C-alpha cells in the first residue's frame, strides 16, 4: 500500500442531517405562515421579510469578515433568525426599523456571544423586544385593512370575546406571522414529523398555559374563551418555532418539560395581569435566562445507574 490511509476516531460514518439541513427544514416549515402573512397584510409584509433576512445575513457576513472569523452564513441560521424576526413584526413597520432589528439580533445577541450555538437568548425575540422598547408606538399598534384596530387579544380582554374562525384562519390584525393558527400548525406538524423539534416544549407550554387561563382567566372554565387565548397572539408561533430554538432551550429531556411549564405560567401571568395583552415574547426570552439553572437540576440519571457519580470518591 503506497498511498497514505486516512485515520480517525470512531465512528467512521455520519448521518446526513447537518446544521444547514435542519435550518432549511425550519425555513420550509415557516413558509405557510409567511405566505399567509403576505396575503393577509399585503406586499409591505414581503418587503419586511426580505429586509430582515438580508440584514441578518449581511450583518453576520460582515461581522465575521471584520473579526476574521470563519464565514458561517451557509448554515442558514441567520436566514431563520431574519424570517422569525419579520414574522414577529407589525406589517406596517418602517423598513429601517426592521433592518435595525435584524442587525441587533445578529450582532448584539448572537455574534458578540460567540456566534451560532453560543447566544443565551433567542436572537429574533430579543430583537423584537428591543424594538418594542425602542419604538413602542410603532411596534404595538396594528393596522388591518387600513384601519388601526385592536388585535384579537386586546378585544378579548376588553369584551371577553373573540371571533374564533377568523383567528384560526388568521384573518385578523397582528404581527405578520402570528395570526394564522392553521398555517403555523401545518409548519409545526412538518417539524414534529421530521423530528426537528421535540414535542415536550410546545406541548407542556400550551397545556400549562391552558390550565392557567382556565383557572385564572377573566372567564374561568369557559372553553370558548380558552380557545380564543390559544389562537390569539403569538402563542402558536412562539410555542412551536421560538421556544423550541435549540440553542436557548434546555438539552435535558426533563428540562424541556420544566422549561415548558415555566413558559406556560409566565405567558399566563403576562397576558392576564400584565399591562400588555401579549406575553409570549417576554416569557420566552425570560425563560431563556433560566435555562442553565433548569439544566442543572434536571441532569438525567444514567442508564442502570444512580444519579450521582459514585466515581467521585474513587478518584
Amino acid at each position, binding site marked *: *500500500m*503506497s*498511498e*497514505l*490511509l*486516512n*485515520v*480517525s*476516531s*470512531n*465512528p*467512521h*460514518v*455520519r*448521518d446526513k*442531517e*447537518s*446544521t444547514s*439541513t*435542519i435550518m432549511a427544514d425550519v425555513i420550509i416549515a415557516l413558509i405557510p405562515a409567511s405566505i399567509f402573512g403576505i396575503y393577509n397584510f399585503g406586499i409591505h409584509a414581503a418587503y419586511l421579510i426580505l429586509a430582515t433576512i438580508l440584514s441578518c445575513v449581511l450583518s453576520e457576513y460582515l461581522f465575521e469578515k471584520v473579526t476574521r472569523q470563519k464565514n*458561517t452564513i451557509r*448554515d442558514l*441560521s441567520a436566514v431563520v433568525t431574519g424570517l422569525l424576526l419579520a414574522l414577529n413584526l407589525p406589517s406596517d413597520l418602517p423598513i429601517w426599523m426592521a433592518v435595525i432589528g435584524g442587525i441587533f439580533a445578529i450582532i448584539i445577541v448572537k455574534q458578540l456571544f*460567540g*456566534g*451560532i*450555538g*453560543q447566544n443565551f437568548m433567542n436572537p429574533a425575540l430579543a430583537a423584537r423586544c428591543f424594538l418594542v422598547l425602542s419604538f413602542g408606538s410603532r411596534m404595538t399598534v396594528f393596522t388591518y385593512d387600513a384601519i388601526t384596530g385592536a388585535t384579537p387579544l386586546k378585544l378579548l380582554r376588553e369584551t371577553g370575546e373573540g371571533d374564533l374562525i377568523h383567528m384560526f384562519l388568521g384573518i385578523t390584525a397582528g404581527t405578520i406571522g402570528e395570526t394564522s393558527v392553521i398555517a403555523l400548525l401545518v409548519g409545526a406538524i412538518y417539524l414534529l414529523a421530521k423530528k426537528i423539534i*421535540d414535542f415536550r416544549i410546545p406541548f407542556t407550554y400550551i397545556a400549562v398555559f391552558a390550565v392557567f387561563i382556565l383557572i385564572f382567566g377573566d372567564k374561568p372554565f369557559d372553553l370558548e374563551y380558552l380557545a380564543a387565548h390559544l389562537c390569539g397572539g403569538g402563542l402558536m408561533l412562539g410555542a412551536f418555532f421560538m421556544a423550541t430554538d*435549540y*440553542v436557548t*432551550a434546555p*438539552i*435535558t*429531556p426533563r428540562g424541556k418539560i420544566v422549561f415548558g411549564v415555566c413558559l406556560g405560567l409566565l405567558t399566563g401571568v403576562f397576558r392576564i395581569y400584565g399591562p400588555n395583552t401579549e406575553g409570549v415574547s417576554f416569557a420566552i426570552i425570560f425563560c431563556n435566562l433560566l435555562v442553565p439553572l433548569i439544566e442543572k437540576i434536571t*441532569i*438525567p*440519571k*444514567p*442508564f*442502570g*445507574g*444512580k444519579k450521582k*457519580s*459514585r*466515581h*467521585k470518591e*474513587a*478518584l
Partner: protein
Amino acid sequence: MSVLTFKGGVHPADGKKLTRNKAIDEYLPEKCEFAIPLGQHIGAPATALVEVGERVLVNQKIGEASGFISANIHSSVSGVVKAIAPRKLANGNKVMSVIIDSDGEYKTMPEIIGNKYEDLSREEKLELIKEAGVVGMGCAGFPTHVKLSPKNPDEIDYVIVNGAECEPYLTSDYRRMMEHPDIIVEGLKIALSLFKNAKGIIAVEDNKLEAIVKLKKMVAKENDIEVKTLFTKYPQGGERSLIFATTKRTLDSSKLPEDVGCIVHNIDTIYSIYNAVIQRKPLVNRVVTITGDAIKYPGNYLVPIGVDIDKLVRDTSEFTCEPEKIISGGPMMGISIYDTHIPVTKCTSAILAFKKDEVSHIEPSNCINCGRCVSVCPSRILPSRLAKASDVCDEEQFLELSGMECVECGSCSYICPAKRQITQSIKTMKKSILAKRRK
C-alpha cells in the same frame, strides 16, 4: 412475538447486502509469513512456548496463558518459527508475536482423545475452553473461561448469545447462524451445562429473519433455550443494551453482567466453545467479513489467525482502487488502520475498505444544542456537555455528568448535525481519568 429493544440508538445505512448472501469461504494461503500475536486478548499476554527454528503444526500451543486473565495462543499453520518479535496490531500497539514461515501444508497435530462429553465435569469443560484459548470474539477479547467462572455460578439466570450484529456491513455472525445453527445451539448448551439455573437466549436483530427462522426450528425441542427477536438498531448488540432488551435488567459501569445474573457471548465465541469442548480444537481461525466500496469481491472468509491483512484482501477479495480508509471492525466502533501489514487476530471481525473517507473531510461547527446526542445515547448521559467538559479538561464536571458511563458506541458523533467528534472527546477524557485511577 414482540420485538425487543432499548431506549436511544441510531439507524446507520447497514450495507449488509454486499455480503449477507456470500457463504463462508475458507482461506488457506500458500507459503507465506504468519505473525501470531501473543496478546490478542484483554489481560496479560501469553508467554511463548516455542523457540526460533522450531517446527510447529496447526493447532499446536505456542503461547501459554500467563495469569488469571490471559489466554493460550495456538498456531494456525504448520511451518518453522522464524522469529519472536514485536508486531503492530490494528490499534497501533506493538505486541510480541510468533513469526512463522508457513510451509503451506497445514499439517495438524495428532488428535487428542479424552473423556466423552457426557462424562466431563464442569471443571473439565472449563479447562478445555481455557486450553483452546477461547476469548470473546466480538471485539473485546475477554478470556471466555474467566467469563464462564463467575463468583456465584448458581446465580446466573441467563446465558445470552449475541446475534444482534448491529454494526453496519458486518455479516460474519449472520453467516455462522445461517450455516451452522446446530453448532450455535450445541455450543450454547455446553455453556448452559456450566450453570444450574441458567436459561439460554439467542438474540437476533429482525433484519436477519432467515437466521431467526432457522434457529427457532433448532430450539423447538429445547426447553431451556429461546430465540428472541430484537429491533434492528445500533448499538443493540452492546452488552448493556442487549441485556436490557432481553431480560429488562439494567447495569451501569460499576457492574458486570454476572452481577445481574447474565453472561453474554458472541456468536463466534459460542462456535469456538463448541470446537473446544466437542472437537477438542483450539481457536486458530475466525470468520472475517471483507467488504466496502473499495473491495471488488466482498465476502465472508474463514481466515487463519496471524495472516497479513494486506495479503488476505489481495488474495481473496481484491481492492478496486487504492482505498482512502481501511477499518478493522465495523464502521461505528472499528479502528481505522494506517498500515495494512498487520495480522488478523481473534478479534478481527471485519475489514472494511472505503474509496472515500466520510469523516476526515468534514469540518465540525459549533454545537447548536439540538439534543440529538442526548436522545440517541444508550447510556442516557449528555454527550455534548461531556465533550465540552473534556475539551476544557474539566474532570470534575465530567464526573458530575456521569461521563464514565459512556460505552463509546459512537452514536452521538454519528448523529451530530454540527459533525462534532463527541465520542472522541469523551473517550480521551475517560482514558485520562482511568489512567489516573490506576496510579
